[in-house]
């Protein structure tokens, strides 16, 4: 279905509230062409800042994409960890309901 939403600082808010089945889902959004910032960054930043940001991005992405150990060589997920995962999912859910970032 097509619905109307307001974009505000990184968030989309439905004009008429809808209750969704899942906390996380992919949507297709129609953005007016004249609202798209064509410059690489709208901020007045020195080349040093841009270079630093790029370096940091490469470093973080490299760590995130580093080859992972085979599953069987890794420690078991403990019951305590599973409880924590659930607890933090609950935190995420509460924050989303409050319209706050996670």
């Amino acid at each position, binding site marked *: 279905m097509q619905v109307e939403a307001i974009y*505000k*600082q*990184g968030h989309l808010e439905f004009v008429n509230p809808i209750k969704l089945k899942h906390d*996380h889902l992919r949507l297709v959004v129609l953005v007016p062409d004249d609202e798209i910032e064509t410059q690489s*960054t709208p*901020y*007045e*930043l*020195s080349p*040093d*800042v*841009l270079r*630093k*940001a790029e370096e*940091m*991005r490469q*470093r*973080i*992405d*490299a*760590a*995130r*994409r*580093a080859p*992972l*150990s085979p*599953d069987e060589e*890794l*420690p*078991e*997920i403990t019951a305590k*960890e599973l409880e*924590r*995962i659930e*607890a*933090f*999912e609950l*935190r*995420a859910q509460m924050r989303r309901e*409050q*319209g*706050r*970032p*996670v």
Partner: protein
Amino acid sequence: MDLLLDINIAVDICSRRAPFFEVADLAVAKCTTTGGRLWLYAGSVQTLEYVLRSELRNTNANEGISATVRQLAQQTRNTLQAFAADKFWLAALAGEGNVFDSTDPEDEQLILALSRFELGTIKLLTRDIALCERYPQWMITPQEYLEAPQRARPINFIDLAGQQDNLRPQLERNLHRVLHHGQYIMGPEVAELEGKLGEYTGAKHCITVASGTEALLIALMALGIKPGDEVITTPFTFVATAEVIVLLGAVPVFVDIEPDTCNIDASKIEAAITPKTRVIMPVSLYGQPADMDEINAIAVRYNLPVIEDAAQSFGAEYKGRKSCNLSTIGCTSFFPSKPLGCYGDGGAIFTSDDGLAKAMREIRVHGQEKRYVHTRVGVGGRMDTLQCAVVLAKLERFDWEVEQRLKIGERYNKLFVGKVPVVTQRPERTSVFAQYTVFVEDREAMQEKLKQAGIPTAVHYPVSLHLQPAYRDGCRVRGGVEVAERMAQRVMSLPMSADLAEVEMRQIVAAFGSIAD
């Protein structure tokens, strides 16, 4: 301005969460590029880990990365390790624990942590609009931060904050240990520090004391200096050197200095010796020992002890031996700005003479040989345990700091060639550059111009001690001290720290050059 990174920002960056990560990347890069510090709250570690783990599932799905639950845990930790590598951890303190009556304990902890800082020096970087609206003075969004004017960090004369950033875990660990064991006077850290300092210098004994001044006073007392005795020293030094002599009723006998090192001119000492001379007390000014071989040789000929006033030179070397272990007694200071400093007053005395060590240990504690048995007159001169804990933490990277100081001093020397004369470092000696000092004409005008360029300066020292009102009549001057008088008009010290960046050094020298032209 520093930034404390909220969980949502850290997760945006670590998980490459669109569309937020790009602006967060830029904000974080802007902060570090302009000399700001990036903090992560230690109390948020678990939240950070589990929220990122959850978010990485989405990123992996978008990027076609397949990971099991266990691999996801490993990927999360890999990413966080890389992310945290260049951030500072802000400790969670006891007062930030009981926040359960708050609407949001997690936010309350962050607000309490931020309130330790001066308002305006740090903000929480967040995209939580509700939090921004509630605490506007403590919050900033990445967009707001990027739109804010970019201000470079000012150059500090001594960058103690930078040093503290790099030693915070060790400092906090050591200080908390003392707070928990509660032995604030003569606690275990005192003996531990004395052992480590003795080993570092090679001296048989190290006795920590309340300050560098107290170190000199106790050393003179242990040598039995009494009214009418004479102590040969330099007039071009901090007042404490002469002060302790006069306090004991003795007479400081000033000998002129070398024009290039500003240290006492050893070739002029012998002429100043009289039957009343009891001690020779050279000062290792600006962090470089004087000509100790020549001074020690004179002392041996006249059977005199030598006290090295090494308040500025702990870590320096003379012919392969450490300052503080170059003569009968060595005295140093741990004043905060010293190469090895504490967070208050502190000092240490070094000797390899067992008898003197015993005397100095007793004098330090009111001349007490054992509890309530006072065999000599002493002082209350102990260094407290908390200050020893600070120095112990700083010792952990002191070798690196000395190495850096040597490099920075050499770099300054090279950059100043042809521009301004600087204090000379003699062969077979190192200087730890407690001060990096240059010689200038019309010093006041020069200082003012450098100040306008954002470069702080200081003068060590503007008046030779024999001209100071309190010492004019109580001292004796052997020969002329014209060099000391002349240098007091010309010396000017520049910013110096182990963490001084190349870009800052270049800025300092460039400003200097343009002024001199």
